[in-house]
C-alpha cells in the first residue's frame, strides 16, 4: 500500500500542491487525472524522491518510504530520458542493475522485455536511432526491468501507438494482478476508465474527487433519458426539469415512475434509462465545479 499524505509544495509564489493525499492499495490501479498544471507531475516526483515536498509524507506499507524500498519502484517521468548513445538492451539492463539486480538477471529481463515489446531486432542499436515511439517502449522497459513492487508512471500512454498502448495496459494490469500498487496519470480518460480501479482528480493542487469508477459515477447528478414513439411534444406534460436532446427527453429531479406512466400513455417507450456519465463528463464536471 502506497500512501501520499498531505503534500504541500510551493515554487516561489506558485502553490503547486496544497494538501494532496491519495493512496494505492496492493493490486490497485489508480488513475490520476487533472488539467495541465494541476500538480500531477509534482506529486509523482515527490513520491519518487526526485523533488522534496515542503511538508507531507510518503508512506509505504505503513512506514515512511526509504531509499532502499524506493529502488524497487518503477518510475516513468513525464519528461522521458534515455542515454542516446547507449545500446538499447545494454541500457535497459544497466537500469536493472541500478535497481539492484545482478548483471545476469538484468540482461535476461531486458531481453524478455524487448521480446514482449517487439524490439528484439533493435537490441544492439543505439537508442538515438530508434523512432520516438520505440524510444517510448524502451522507456517503458526501463521502468519495468526490475520487476517493480510499485509503479508510478507519469503519462505513460502519451505518444504510443494503439499496439503499444495495449502492451502498456497489459503490463500495468499484470503488475497490479501480481499485487503491486499502480499509479498513473493520463489525459486519455477512456483509458483511465478501462484500466483503473479507482480515479483521483486533482485541480489546482487539491484533490477534488476520488473513489472507484462506480462511486464517482454514482455521485454524479442523474439524468433520466426517455425516448417515446409519438408525434406529441411531451415537454410540458412530463414532471420535473425537462430538456430535449434530439428526439430524447432528459428529465431531472422527479419521480421516475410518474415519468414512465405519462410516457407510456403517450406512445411506445423505446428507451427509458439513467445516463451513465463517462469519466470525461465527471472530470469536466469536477474541474468546473
Amino acid at each position, binding site marked *: 500500500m502506497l500512501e501520499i499524505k498531505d503534500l504541500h509544495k510551493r515554487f516561489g509564489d506558485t502553490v503547486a500542491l496544497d494538501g494532496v493525499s491519495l493512496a494505492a492499495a496492493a493490486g490497485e490501479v489508480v488513475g490520476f487525472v487533472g488539467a495541465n498544471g494541476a500538480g500531477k507531475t509534482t506529486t509523482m516526483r515527490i513520491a519518487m*524522491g*526526485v523533488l522534496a515536498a515542503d511538508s507531507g509524507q510518503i508512506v509505504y506499507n505503513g512506514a515512511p518510504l526509504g*531509499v532502499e524500498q*524506493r529502488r524497487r519502484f518503477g518510475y516513468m517521468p513525464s*519528461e*522521458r*530520458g534515455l*542515454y*542516446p548513445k547507449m545500446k538499447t538492451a545494454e541500457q535497459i539492463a*544497466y537500469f536493472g542493475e541500478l535497481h539492484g539486480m545482478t548483471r545476469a538477471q538484468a540482461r535476461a529481463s531486458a531481453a524478455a522485455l524487448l521480446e514482449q515489446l517487439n524490439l528484439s531486432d533493435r537490441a544492439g542499436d543505439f537508442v538515438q536511432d530508434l523512432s520516438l515511439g520505440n524510444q517510448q517502449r524502451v522507456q517503458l522497459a526501463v521502468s519495468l526491468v526490475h520487476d517493480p513492487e510499485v509503479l508510478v508512471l507519469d503519462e505513460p500512454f502519451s505518444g504510443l501507438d494503439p499496439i503499444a498502448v495495449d502492451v502498456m495496459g497489459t503490463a500495468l494490469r499484470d503488475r497490479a494482478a501480481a499485487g503491486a500498487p499502480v499509479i498513473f496519470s493520463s489525459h486519455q480518460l477512456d483509458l483511465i476508465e478501462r484500466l483503473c480501479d479507482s480515479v483521483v482528480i486533482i485541480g489546482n493542487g487539491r484533490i477534488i474527487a476520488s473513489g472507484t469508477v462506480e462511486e464517482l459515477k454514482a455521485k454524479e447528478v442523474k439524468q433520466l433519458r426517455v425516448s417515446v414513439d409519438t408525434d406529441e411534444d411531451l415537454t410540458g406534460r412530463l414532471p420535473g426539469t425537462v430538456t430535449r436532446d434530439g428526439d430524447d427527453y432528459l428529465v431531472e429531479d422527479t419521480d421516475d415512475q410518474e415519468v414512465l406512466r405519462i410516457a407510456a400513455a403517450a406512445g411506445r417507450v423505446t428507451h427509458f434509462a439513467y445516463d451513465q456519465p463517462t469519466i470525461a463528463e465527471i472530470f469536466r464536471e469536477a474541474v468546473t465545479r
Partner: protein
Amino acid sequence: MSDQTSETSRMRGLMLVAGREIRVRGLSKANIVSMIVTVVIVGILAALPSFLGGDDADEKIGLAGTGADAMQTQLDAMGGFDVTLFDSAAEAERAAEDGDVEAAVADGRVYSENGLDSAVQNQLDSAWQAASVQTNLGDAGLTDAQIAGALTVQPLESVTFGDDSGTDSITGYFTGLVISIIMFMMLMTPVQYIAMGVVEEKSSRIVEILLTSLKPWQLLGGKVIGLGVISLVNLVAMVAVGLGVASATGMLSDLPPGTASAAVSSIGWWLIAFALFGTLAGGVGSLVSRQEESGSVLTPLIMSLTLSYLGAIFLLNAPTSTFAVVLSIVPPFSGIAMPTRMAIAEVPAWQIGLSGVLLALAAAGALALGSQLYKRSVLYTGSRMKISEALRRAA
C-alpha cells in the same frame, strides 16, 4: 536494512556508474581510435632519436697492435663504445673498410670510411693519448700501481658566480616539457567529458530516473572515477609504449636516472589535480541544461588549466625563480607546475610537501563544492543557474 548492506549497495551504485562510463566512453570507437593515435605518436617520438643519425647506439671500434689493451681499458671507461680486438692491424683495417666497425685504431693510425664525427675523433684521441702515456710509463719501468696513481686526475670542479637557475640539462628540460604537456592533456580531456556527460544526463532528463535509485554523489563520483580510470589507462598505455620503444632502441639508458621517479610522482599529482578539476567540472556542468551552454560555465576551469600549463612552460626556463616556487606551491597551478619543476630542478622536500597538502586541500574543497553544486542544480531545468543561486537553494 543493516549498515553493511546499504554500504555495499552504495559502493555498488558508484561502481555501476563508473563502469558505464568506462564501457560507453572508454570502449567507444572515438576513444579507442584517439588512444591508438596518441600511442603511435608517442612511439614514433620515442623512436625518433635512433632513426635520426642513430649515434646513440654504441660506436663500433676495432683495435689491434701495440697499446690495444690499454686503449680498450680507456674506451670502456669512457663508455659508449663497442670494442672488438683484432689479431693484426691488417684485419682491423679490413673490418673498417668493410664497415664491420665504424673505425679501427692500429699502430698509431685510425682507419675509417669517410673520416669520423668530431666527438668520436676527440674521444679516440684522448684514449690514444692516455693509452700511450700508460705504455710509455710502463716502458720507463713504473709499476702498474704507480702508473695508476700518476694517471689519476681529479676532474675540475666547476664554480659559477651567476644564478645557476639555467637549465642544467637538456634532458631535464624535455622531460619537464613532456610532463607538462601530458598533464595538461590528461586533465583537459576528461574534465570536458565529465561536464559533457553531466549536461547530457541533464538535458536528456535521464537524471530524473537515475536519481530514483542513486544519490547525486554516486552519480557524480562514479562519473569522475570512470573518466579517471579511462585517462589513467590512456596514460599508462602512453608511458608503457614510450618507455618500451625507448628501451628497444637503446635510448632508455641515456635518460637521466630520475625519469622513472618523475613519471611515477606525476601520476600522483595528476590524481589530485584530476579530483580537483573533475568534480568542479561536474558541479558547474550541472548548472546548465543544454550542451551549447556548457562552454560558458566551463570557461573559468579551462582558463585555469591553460594558465597552469603556460605557467609550467614558462617555469621550465627559470626553475628556481620566485615565480616558479610560488607557481608550484599555489593550487590549482601546482598540479602541473610542481611535477614539471621537479623534473628540471632539485625541489626542497618541504616545498613538495606543502604543495601536495595545499593541492589535496583544494581538491577536498572542490569535491565539497562540486558535489553541492551538482546536488542542488542537477534536477533544475530552465535557464542557466548562477552559482550563488545554486548554493542558496536548499538541497
